[in-house]
């Protein structure tokens, strides 16, 4: 009997051990132990989830989300028909019924989404159809631009990522698959300025296996940071995560291999915080471990590799998607564990550890996107099981307090549609000048006010100046048009005289002037001069042209004027291209 009891006890113990092991190997959403859960963080986080994909049937996948400075939010996702759809929510309002993004080419279903916002509140959206073609469109005030197929040498593979520079230039990093002659997959950067109609592109790699979606971020200097997967100089099946740092002229400043362990270092993410610290993350697929490194621009050093512990046993090759975002000084990482449960992790720079900040859903997740809102982290996701829908989970975070009390004023000075270099922007601190592209940028203290006036010898500008009051945000597209500044004549003199015979007489005003030496110095050909007249008490809209003279004339007689007239005069110059100087 004792033996039976002992055997039974041993059997029960074995059963319990098996049961515990089985439970641990098959994580469930509600009871998954969180190995690195910070009770304070989880307790403080306010998490809310709503469904945003409407009530239609079918599977909705691959969502992306962003919020602009006004607090408006846009979610895009692949609809059940394969076309991309969107739903929009004004701050404090309700979500619109999902609708198809208009004028899309016929899609073969779509994947991999990213959304970013520029300073004007415009949403820039990127998605890829399963024919491995990237499409781009933007949305503002209820209007979509026509989706455009990216002009690429080959075709894209596994999507891309978007970032926006301070001058609202869109930067897209994407994998470009070139079949011939090397079957290589290269990382390309695509650039589209605010006024550009097409993307320019640049290849930043020279290997053959940059084959997963890269990640791109922009720092406060408008430098670009790209994280990508590479197999350069490694054995087959050994992939590394590499970072490229490009300056604002898109030249590569530095490159660095971030991962050091062999294996499939996959799905790189990169983000820049308000202090220009750069965080990169990736997943090592065969161990299902996430890793991160932090770059400090002051020390110019990368931290050692840090492991991100999501909790629950991770199954090799069963987790890879993650999304990284910076919110103020903080970094957040949304990542799935092997059970496809989504966690929002927060980085603690003091401890160099990632803590579990919030549990996003009770259901397994298939795909997701993460975006830093003003006082919430936004996570859109689709559930793993079918039928799938799109959900938005918000996690309250402290509002971003500006770490800088400065704003940028930037724009372009153009002449005949081309940038004009060497224009000094007087009034801006430091009097910056335009570069070879005609672009300028100046930094002012928040609350600054003043008048910015472009100046370059021989040129005039429209507008001649822009006056600012209480600048508290970046002022982009502060553009000017330049034109050759033909000056009016110099030293204009008016003398009133009387021409008298014996019986009759009349009054005439004798105008004399000199050629303007500035026109002469510029080599301008003055083909005509125009004489204008108005009464002294009339406003400037009353100038009336009374004569057009040859360019070499230096005097004019305005005859038969009333003897008590109070006329004032202006003599403008017209060059051989028809440009006329200002009257006053």
């Amino acid at each position, binding site marked *: 009997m004792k033996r039976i009891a002992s055997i039974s006890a041993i059997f029960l113990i074995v059963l319990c051990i098996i049961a515990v092991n089985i439970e641990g190997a098959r994580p469930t959403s509600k009871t998954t132990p969180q190995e690195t859960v910070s009770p304070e963080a989880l307790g403080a986080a306010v998490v809310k989830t709503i469904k945003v994909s409407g009530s239609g049937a079918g599977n909705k996948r691959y969502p992306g989300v962003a919020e602009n400075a006004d607090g408006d939010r846009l979610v895009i996702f692949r609809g059940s028909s394969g076309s991309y759809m969107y739903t929009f929510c004004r701050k404090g309002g309700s979500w619109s019924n999902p609708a198809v993004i208009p004028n899309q080419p016929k899609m073969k279903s779509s994947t991999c989404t990213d959304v970013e916002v520029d300073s004007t509140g415009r949403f820039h959206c990127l998605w890829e159809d399963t024919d491995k073609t990237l499409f781009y469109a933007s949305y503002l005030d209820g209007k979509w631009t026509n989706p455009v197929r990216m002009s690429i040498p080959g075709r894209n593979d596994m999507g891309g990522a978007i970032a926006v520079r301070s001058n609202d230039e869109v930067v897209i990093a994407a994998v470009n698959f070139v079949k011939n002659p090397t079957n290589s997959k290269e990382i390309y950067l695509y650039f589209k300025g605010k006024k550009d109609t097409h993307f320019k592109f640049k290849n930043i790699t020279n290997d053959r296996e940059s084959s997963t979606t890269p990640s791109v971020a922009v720092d406060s200097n408008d430098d670009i940071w790209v994280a990508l997967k590479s197999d350069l100089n490694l054995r087959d099946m050994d992939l590394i995560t590499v970072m490229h740092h490009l300056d604002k002229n898109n030249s590569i400043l530095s490159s660095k291999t971030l991962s050091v362990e062999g294996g499939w270092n996959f799905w790189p993410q990169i983000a820049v915080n308000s202090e220009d610290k750069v965080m990169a993350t990736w997943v090592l697929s065969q161990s299902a471990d996430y890793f991160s490194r932090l770059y400090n621009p002051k020390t110019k050093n990368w931290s050692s590799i840090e492991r991100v512990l999501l909790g629950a046993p991770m199954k090799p090759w069963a987790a890879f998607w993650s999304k990284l975002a910076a919110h103020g000084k903080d970094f957040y990482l949304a990542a799935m564990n092997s059970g496809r449960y989504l966690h929002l992790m927060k980085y603690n720079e003091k401890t160099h550890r990632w803590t579990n900040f919030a549990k996003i859903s009770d259901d397994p997740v298939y795909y997701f996107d993460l975006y830093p809102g003003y006082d919430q982290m936004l996570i859109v996701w689709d559930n793993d099981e079918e039928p799938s829908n799109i959900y938005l989970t918000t996690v309250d975070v402290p509002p971003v307090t500006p770490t800088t009390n400065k704003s940028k004023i930037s724009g372009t000075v153009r002449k005949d549609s081309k940038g004009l270099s060497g224009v000094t922007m007087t009034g801006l601190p430091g009097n910056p000048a335009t570069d070879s592209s005609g672009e300028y940028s100046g930094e002012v203290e928040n609350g600054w006010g003043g008048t910015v006036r472009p100046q370059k010898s021989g040129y005039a500008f429209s507008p001649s100046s822009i006056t600012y009051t209480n600048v508290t945000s970046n002022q982009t597209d502060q553009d000017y048009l330049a034109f050759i500044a033909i000056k009016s004549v110099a030293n204009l003199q008016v003398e009133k*005289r*009387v*021409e*008298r*015979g*014996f*019986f*009759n*007489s*009349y009054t*005439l005003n004798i105008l004399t002037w000199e050629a303007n030496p500035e026109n002469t110095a510029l080599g301008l050909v003055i083909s005509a001069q125009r004489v204008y007249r108005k009464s002294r008490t009339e406003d400037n809209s009353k100038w009336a042209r009374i004569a057009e003279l040859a360019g070499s004339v230096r005097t004019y007689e305005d*005859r*038969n004027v009333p003897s008590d007239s109070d006329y004032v005069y202006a003599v403008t110059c017209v060059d051989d291209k028809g440009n006329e100087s200002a009257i006053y």
Partner: protein
Amino acid sequence: MNSMKSRILLITFGLLILGTAMALPAAAQDPSQDQGQVQTEEVKQPRFRIGAYFEGYMINDKNLKDFYHHSQRNMPGFEASVHTVYNIDVWASYRIYRDEAKTTYFEKNDKFRISAVSVGLQYRPIRWKFLEPFVGAGLDLYSYKETVEAGSDISGASGNATGFYVQVGTYANIYKFIALTGFYRYNGVKKTLANPLPDGSKSMDLGGHEFGGGIVLKF
């Protein structure tokens, strides 16, 4: 303008014809008839006098003097007379007053001309052998015109003016058919204008003092 000139000439010739008509009955009398000393003397007088002279005209108008910068212009003149009765002649004279200046700014030539016709009666109260002093009075009929050279926007002007004259003088008989003459004449000719003159006034005084001398054919 032309009609005015014609009218002046018509009046002048009318007066001359009238004088001639008045003189003809006397000329028709037979000199052989004994009609007394006076009648004989009347018959011996020449009927006609035609003379040319050179004179100075001191114009009254201040504006003209200021604008044209001359207070006196010298000029030729012509006269003709017909003896009527009692040493009274119908007398007429024609002279041309000219002056020229520049416009004030463009300095274009500005010419001014007065065509002066005087018609009246002349009385020679004493007829000495050598001297025949006379007095006279009558009408002045003036035509004036300003012409401005092209290049200025000023237009010229013209017009007519009437007035009177009084004169004194004498003939000095040096041959049977030739006499010298000297005279002083005062003209009173004013005109009111529509537009002001340089000094702002609208009254123009074309009259003035004339004095001169010449030669006269008598027959």
